[in-house]
């Protein structure tokens, strides 16, 4: 994907502008909350995608970064810190816990890494559940002035920044290195790509934004159990969104998050667990048949519609060493 066309970038810009304008045009709480959810999931999905999609390290402990971000940000904010500082603290907490989790588990490969991250995230969740069993409720002072709009914009900005970073990353040497590690870690290492460094870079970026997402959550939710953001659901739902949208791409997590939240909302009206069954089936289908998710489906549809007749398509010239 060399040089994204101006048209695509313009399309993105339009989308962002439209979203930015929504609270001014249609300030309905349910709509704003719904879109807030979308933005939160976009950040979670896109951040997971950096480690899981670009670098290929399936991390099942993403909720730990989110949870720590929420925990630290909430405590800081309610403890009197200015909001931006609380957000920074949240992001930092996410990164810190990621390094604590990541550095030992990166020694493990493949499925052992994945279950290792899950195990450590669960350990964290259990510990937090036991040490912080309480509900965190906004004090009256905050409740009086509670407005949805600033939350909306914060979530939007965080999501846009996250996606922007993934875009830049995808076109950078660092990103290329991550992909090399994903494709074949040993080969990458042998050709001079420091696999560990790239994995850690992916981890840090991933955790940073997950932490920010956590802080966003802490800013938005009026009252919740402090251990709730550590639930593995906060890993698995974005995971679903990423794969359905298109893992490893920039736009995939975004599409996936929109799809996931909107379809969930739709189906939840009807039958409660149906949306998860649907997503589960979709997920399986994606893994088996359409690894590129909706993005790949879109590209295939495009090619099908604009394909020249078979006779015109390029044929490689005869036998001989098959090199690309």
């Amino acid at each position, binding site marked *: 994907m060399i040089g994204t066309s101006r048209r695509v970038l313009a399309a993105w810009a339009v989308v962002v502008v439209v979203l930015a304008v929504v609270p001014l045009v249609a300030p309905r709480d349910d709509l704003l909350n719904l879109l807030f959810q979308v933005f939160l999931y976009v950040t979670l999905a896109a951040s997971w995608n950096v480690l899981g999609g670009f670098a290929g390290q399936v991390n099942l402990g993403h909720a730990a970064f989110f949870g720590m971000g929420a925990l630290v940000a909430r405590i800081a904010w309610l403890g009197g810190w200015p909001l931006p500082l609380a957000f920074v603290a949240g992001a930092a907490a996410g990164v810190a816990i990621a390094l604590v989790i990541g550095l030992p588990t990166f020694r493990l490969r493949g499925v052992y890494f994945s279950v290792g991250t899950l195990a450590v995230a*669960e*350990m964290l969740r259990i*510990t937090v559940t036991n040490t912080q069993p309480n509900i965190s409720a906004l004090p009256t002072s905050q409740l009086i002035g509670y407005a949805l709009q600033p939350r909306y914009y914060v979530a939007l900005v965080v999501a846009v920044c996250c996606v922007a970073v993934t875009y830049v990353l995808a076109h950078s040497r660092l990103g290329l290195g991550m992909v090399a590690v994903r494709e074949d870690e040993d080969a990458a290492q042998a050709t001079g790509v420091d696999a560990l460094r790239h994995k850690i870079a992916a981890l840090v970026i991933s955790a940073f934004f997950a932490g920010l997402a956590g802080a966003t959550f802490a800013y938005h939710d009026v009252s919740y159990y402090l251990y709730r953001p550590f639930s*593995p659901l906060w890993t698995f739902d974005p995971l679903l969104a990423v794969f359905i949208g298109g893992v490893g791409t920039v736009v995939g997590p975004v599409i996936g998050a929109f799809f996931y939240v909107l379809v969930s909302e739709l189906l939840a009206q009807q039958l409660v667990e149906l949306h998860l*069954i649907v997503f589960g089936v979709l997920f399986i289908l994606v893994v088996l048949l359409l690894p590129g998710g909706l993005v790949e489906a879109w590209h295939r549809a495009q090619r099908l519609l604009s394909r020249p007749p078979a006779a015109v398509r390029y044929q490689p010239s005869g036998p001989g060493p098959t090199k690309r």
Partner: protein
Amino acid sequence: MTVTPESFAQSLVFGLLVGALYGLAAAGLSLVFGVMKVLNVAHGDLLMLGGYGSFWLFTLYGVDPFVSLLIIGPALFVIGLALELALFRPLTRFDEETKIKNSLLIGFGLALVLENLAIRLWTADERGITTAYAGTVARLGAINLPLDRLGNLAVALAVIVGLHLFLTRTYLGKGIRATAEDWQAATLVGINVRRTYLIAFALGTALAGVAGTLVTVGFAVSPTIGLDWTLKALIVVVLAGLGSVFGTFVGGLLLGLGESLVTLIPNGGSYRELVGLVLFVVVLLVRPQGLFGRSR
């Protein structure tokens, strides 16, 4: 809570009873993982299916849970056949690393579907089987041994021994072990590796179903136990290492004992779940082949 010798012993026995179930649950996962190198994260949900099967057989038709095993085992075996053919066999066209990663994801999708299907069909309520003899308690000194829990232990032991004999005394069983050790060499001696994978997976699923029945008798079944049991089974598999059925069983017992011991510590009860997780991570980092596995 003061710990008396009696409560200590009772706790240990309880730990062993639970551990036996952990070991049985792990045996199925270990088989699949060892042979196919695939981690089926839906293993716990298959266990859950078996549990529900027994529950409904008991509730609707009065079938004793231990008798229902004769139905649940084969039924889950068939389900395993279907799942392997539909979901995991298509993965063989990928290379090793992609295959393993995708099988993790597929298992996750399957777990999601099974769990939520269960919620839809049977609600999220917990179900348990209380047989007529559940109240009868055998006594060993001051220790209480409820009959149904003893039944669980007996069945778990029998199944483990049966599995061991199958793998060490029959051609098919040895073929499975050979495939687990070196699938290419297995092909070279005429073993149909694809069929071996199919059988191993189906067998693992059947074992999960049997474990599920025992879990429903001893504890309870609900749609959400899947992930918990997958994790428990996985912890035991990593703790014990691959390659030995008895080793896996002992690993399960150790985990059960460990958890029980933790609950004896003041305020330890809520950290019970941590035991397995900590053991898991430590073993992975320090001795990845597990306690009884061969070091590669």
